[in-house]
């Protein structure tokens, strides 16, 4: 099947198209590399005739790709056309809109290996993204929102490229391989008039890295945030070893749009192509979005206290209420003989209103420690370290 590419010139002429015929790479495909994005403009010539557009993102930055989703949702006229966005990210953990990052992933482990955390706009559970994990986003108008139909595109495509492959969509909008292994999870977002449904597709993800980071940062957190439902997963490549990435993408694209389609490569790095995108990227990277949007939760745990100078030990009860990522209240019950009440109270007092963040707490604790010395200081230091470690 062939790809028909139209050159659209809008009266306002706010984009240009650079053609690159890349036949050798993609057989009979003609891929258009865009320097600007075609949007629902009504050109005098009758406009872009394509009802279905496929976009492949060139970026592997999770924040840029999530921002690109937002951008398409806000800027493309989805009433009369649909868009399929294909993207993948360098290793990252992505939590759902209403989830709690402290319960979903091990923030300390992620920091150690340099895996970033992102919160997406859609609901659902936590996913580990890496270059072996394909993301598909189906953009439609709110009226045309149909997750079953979208998943059918994937299952039909997989059966076409590998007949006999046992893939089924479930009632929970997952896709199971051999009736048992989850190879795709779903989440979606509905706005005023538009909607998008995105899902993962495990082609060749690093499963060991996945299990190392997808566990709680610390114990003792009680929250009503959306929990993730863990399932056994598998990679497509393990069960269809000859299915290469490019073949998978081809198959999906052909299934999405039988007939002519427009295939574009998007580079979400430039603001000139996607005006306003960098602002969204900055918002998605910010602490206020990633952590501040966590639904209210409480922390109740027991801290082990030591001296560093003597074998003496003790324990303290900690209770915090966290709202919008800020510590609304802190209660620390330290035995009087271990540390004078005013000292532990001072520590708690300095944390109230501050972010539930180990670095913020560390800075406050370090400042407090300056004015103490001797045994009091080493015990207070130990207490501070214990409190900080609860924050991930």
């Amino acid at each position, binding site marked *: 099947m062939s790809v028909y590419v139209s050159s659209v010139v809008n009266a306002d002429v706010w984009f240009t198209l650079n053609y690159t015929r890349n036949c050798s790479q993609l057989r009979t495909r003609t891929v258009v590399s865009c320097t600007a994005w075609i949007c629902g403009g009504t050109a005098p010539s009758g406009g872009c005739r394509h009802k279905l557009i496929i976009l492949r993102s060139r970026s592997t930055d999770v924040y840029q790709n999530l921002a690109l989703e937002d951008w398409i949702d806000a800027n493309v006229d989805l009433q009369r056309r649909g868009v399929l966005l294909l993207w993948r990210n360098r290793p990252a953990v992505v939590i759902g809109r*209403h989830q709690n990052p402290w319960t979903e992933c091990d923030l300390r482990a992620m920091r150690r290996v340099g895996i970033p955390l992102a919160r997406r706009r859609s*609901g659902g559970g936590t996913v580990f993204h890496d270059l072996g994990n394909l993301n598909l986003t189906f953009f439609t108008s709110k009226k045309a929102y149909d997750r079953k139909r979208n998943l059918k595109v994937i299952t039909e495509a997989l059966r076409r490229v590998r007949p006999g492959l046992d893939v089924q969509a479930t009632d929970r909008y997952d896709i199971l391989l051999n009736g048992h292994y989850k190879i795709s999870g779903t989440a979606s977002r509905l706005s005023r008039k538009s909607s998008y449904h995105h899902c993962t597709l495990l082609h060749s993800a690093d499963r060991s890295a996945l299990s190392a980071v997808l566990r709680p940062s610390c114990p003792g957190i009680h929250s009503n945030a959306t929990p993730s439902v863990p399932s056994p997963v598998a990679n497509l490549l393990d069960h269809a070893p000859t299915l290469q990435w490019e073949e998978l993408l081809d198959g999906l694209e052909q299934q999405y749009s039988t007939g002519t389609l427009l295939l574009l490569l998007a580079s979400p790095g430039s603001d000139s192509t996607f005006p306003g995108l960098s602002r969204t990227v900055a918002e998605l990277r910010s602490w206020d979005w990633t952590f501040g949007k966590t639904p209210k939760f409480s922390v109740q745990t027991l801290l082990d206290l030591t001296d560093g100078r003597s074998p003496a030990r003790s324990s303290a009860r900690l209770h915090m209420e966290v709202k919008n990522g800020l510590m609304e209240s802190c209660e620390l019950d330290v035995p009087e003989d271990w540390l004078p009440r005013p000292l532990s109270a001072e520590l708690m007092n300095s944390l109230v*209103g501050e972010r539930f963040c180990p670095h913020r707490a560390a800075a406050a604790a370090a400042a407090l420690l300056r004015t103490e010395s001797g045994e009091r200081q080493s015990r207070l230091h130990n207490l501070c370290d214990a409190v*900080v470690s609860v924050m991930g």
Partner: protein
Amino acid sequence: LCTRPLSHVTGTSRCSAAGRCTLLPVSPDQQRPESCRDLKPDDVDDVTDAFCPAVSRGPIVQFKLSDIGEGIMEVTVKEWYVKEGDKVSQFDSICEVQSDKASVTITSRYDGVIRKLYYDVDATALVGKPLVDIETESGSEVIQEEDVVETPAMAREEHTHQEIKGHKTQATPAVRRLAMENNIKLSEVVGTGKDGRILKEDILNFLAKQTGAILPPTPFQEIQTPVTKPPPTTPKPVFTGKDVTEPLKGFHKAMVKTMSAALKIPHFGYCDEVDLSRLVALRAELRSVAEGRGVKLSYMPFFIKAASLGLLHFPILNASVDEGCQNITYKASHNIGLAMDTNQGLLVPNVKNVQLLSVFEIAQELNRLQALGSTGQLGTSDLTGGTFTLSNIGSIGGTYAKPVILPPEVAIGALGKIQVLPRFGAGGQVIPAHIMKVSWSADHRIIDGATMCRFSNLWREYLENPGQHDLKEQNGSLTLSGFQTHSRSHVIRSD
């Protein structure tokens, strides 16, 4: 509500003027309803169910949760973006609900004031049941999505106005009507409303600019909103500043205690200037070597190393006194703190055991601390245990300063900026010299002026003659060979 489709008059939306219908001149065969008592139950849209009391300035509209699709009947309310008493405009987000992995943003169809929220966070909301009560302004129009699509003649023209550079313009139908009647492209108007929304004033401003005159009000305007004032000219910035009070928290709160303790220390100051001309040349040579190993080399590693070499001769400056000034502890490690300007404020991480490190290793450690500092990731071990501090305020600006000692330390140095100034050379000629001012503060209870002065002189000497000093101590000099030697045979610190 008047349920006469407005396309018979102008525009595309249904009239939702509560009370008296105050819209445009109607064609003679149309009857203008006297009041919304003419409303027939069947005329009401299935999705929104609005009622208005007979007499009211602002009728309360029960905004119901509209159909999400896929047969979903209930959702969980996850976040409210508004609270009772908040003013909302059309298209503003009201709340976020979640249903089965779908996150849905509910936006307002009305302009008005929120009067009641029907659900708490985490409660289950039912589709078709009221979500919020909004007190609408009289004369405000309700956007009914279905209608915009249903009237084809208007819709296509509106589309060309709506899509500018791929960006959907936000503008109420009234505003769009106004633009259309005056042949204005919405893409050319700058929106000053929320999210770049185009307001009526923006259209009027645009027109005023175009014609350079105050336009006579169109018949539309005459009837709906009598123009009582001319379109505003470029607004002068008005100072509406109010005092803002907020509590101190976190690090800043803790620093209050530290600084109060610091002021109990009797400070004395001592200032000097250092000629860094030779150091500037040396650093220029060494920079590429360092960068070759992936390390950014500034002047700080040299200042820090020189301080540590000086502390070997004047250990009292690396000491600490107890509460009642009874005992003095001479600290063995030179953990030299570096004041760092972060987004949180001034944090002071320290480089541990500088006495064991070469200039290159100090530079490496500084790179690590700076990277952590810029991302707000410094931990307690980096921020505690300092014994002596240098503050490079000169990187931002300034010459002399009066730094405050950070307890439990007893001395601190503030470094001004490096300036090229004229100085006299050996032969009496004027030469350009790279001069930096330094301001020391020390605890006068245990340190006297002479000690500080001698320390400063020694420190200065190392920096002014980096190639010449060869100490008998294990650390060697600041020369090129010393720089490289240590990177080959550095002592491994235990953390």
